[in-house]
């Protein structure tokens, strides 16, 4: 597990109030009972932690997160980009 992955899962566990070992990459946020407000808090915490902007709109299915892996990939893709 990379350090980034470790940090992201830590934040999801903390803000989503879910035990860390339930956070499989294909686990659905809804099944983990992570509510939409929790997701917004998770995105906020990730942006603060990594100093990034995550394109996320709760009204746009293309920019919504379904699984734990979706959140991780969103962070990875932004972190990988050189700062604009």
């Amino acid at each position, binding site marked *: 597990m990379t350090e980034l992955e470790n940090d992201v899962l830590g934040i999801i566990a903390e803000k989503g109030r879910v035990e860390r070992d339930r956070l499989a990459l294909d686990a659905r946020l809804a099944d983990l009972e992570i509510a939409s*407000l929790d997701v*917004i808090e998770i*995105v906020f915490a990730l942006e603060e932690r990594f100093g990034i902007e995550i394109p996320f*709109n*709760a*009204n746009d299915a293309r920019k919504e997160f379904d699984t734990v892996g979706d959140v991780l990939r969103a962070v990875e893709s932004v972190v990988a980009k050189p700062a604009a």
Partner: protein
Amino acid sequence: MGHRRVVVTGLGVVSPIGSGVADYADSIFAGRCGIGPLSLVPTQGLSVRIAGEVRGFDPAAHFDARRLGLLDRGSQFALVAARQAVEASGLGFDGPLGLRTATILGTGVGGITTLDEGFHRLYREGVQRLHPFTIPRLMVSAPTAQVSMEFGLTGPAFTASSACASAAHAIGLAFQMVRGGLADAAVTGGTEASLTFGALKGWEAMRIVSPDGCRPFCETRNGMVLGEGAAVLVLETLDSARVRGADILGEVAGFGMSADAKDITAPDAEGAARAMRAALADAGLEPEEVGYVNAHGTGTTANDATEARAIHAVFGDHARRLLVSSTKSMVGHALGAAGALEAAATLLALRRQVVPPTAGVERPDPACALDVVPRDAREARVEAALSNSFAFGGLNAALAFRRV
């Protein structure tokens, strides 16, 4: 005292699609959209780039410098709309009527322009003191107080604050007071001016604002757009309006309220349906008698789907014949003023027998299964109409209006 019938004899509007009832009516029936690039605040560092702004509003054209120093933008809007409404009503409040007139306005946020500017100077620029009028400008009750002072209205006066339902709660309570004989007239409605950098950053963080437009009930909708403005109604009894020979815009027929008691942001169809049913029962209306519903219709995925479910639950088969449209498609979401701007649109629809459209709809969402009057206004026989306001926190209000 038995129930008295309550009518609207004055209307005033300050909005992103025109100030004054004539301009506002022209715009809503033309489906004109007042949403455009944000100009009130610098957009650098903001992902929210569009809003329904009241453009070209010149405070100095309405208030002298001494008065203006005491008025937040929200109070300015309220006063300008109230002056229009009172003038249109033809009522004078100098005599005993002033004692028997209530002032009840809705405001969701309050004087955040004053707060934002003051705190910017304090925290960022390092000034040592704030302007002495900071508090009287920013308090959420200031617009109500200013309107009561403007006309010498010395009856019951307070601000109703329930986020996006504030103005509907205000109008509903004013209606109940006049109907029940606690007041003989009321100046009521709502005002909001909260397009500040700080407030917009708050909305940005909620991730529900659309980057490109407000398209309620549209398949491609992707969020709400913020707005601002004010609308004010003058209420009095049907009897007094007839005796005066006043021009009657319509009757406030009923009012329903409910709380979801579930979630601080997610809407609930049951709570919304309870408010609509309560308004119909209060008005003595059967669902089939309602021809038009001015929807809360914010353009978020959650609100519009939930509101559509609630409308189907309340109206049954009749829901497919109902016309449903959202004024927010043209003015954005003016929060504490929204219910008043929408009550104004509903009254104008009853009066003209034309239903304003939901502007900007590309493809009506089949999942909502409603006739949302896309793009173009439509002539229709409408005897009664509902105006819905469903606020964050599940505080719901529905007003029923009837043609007179």
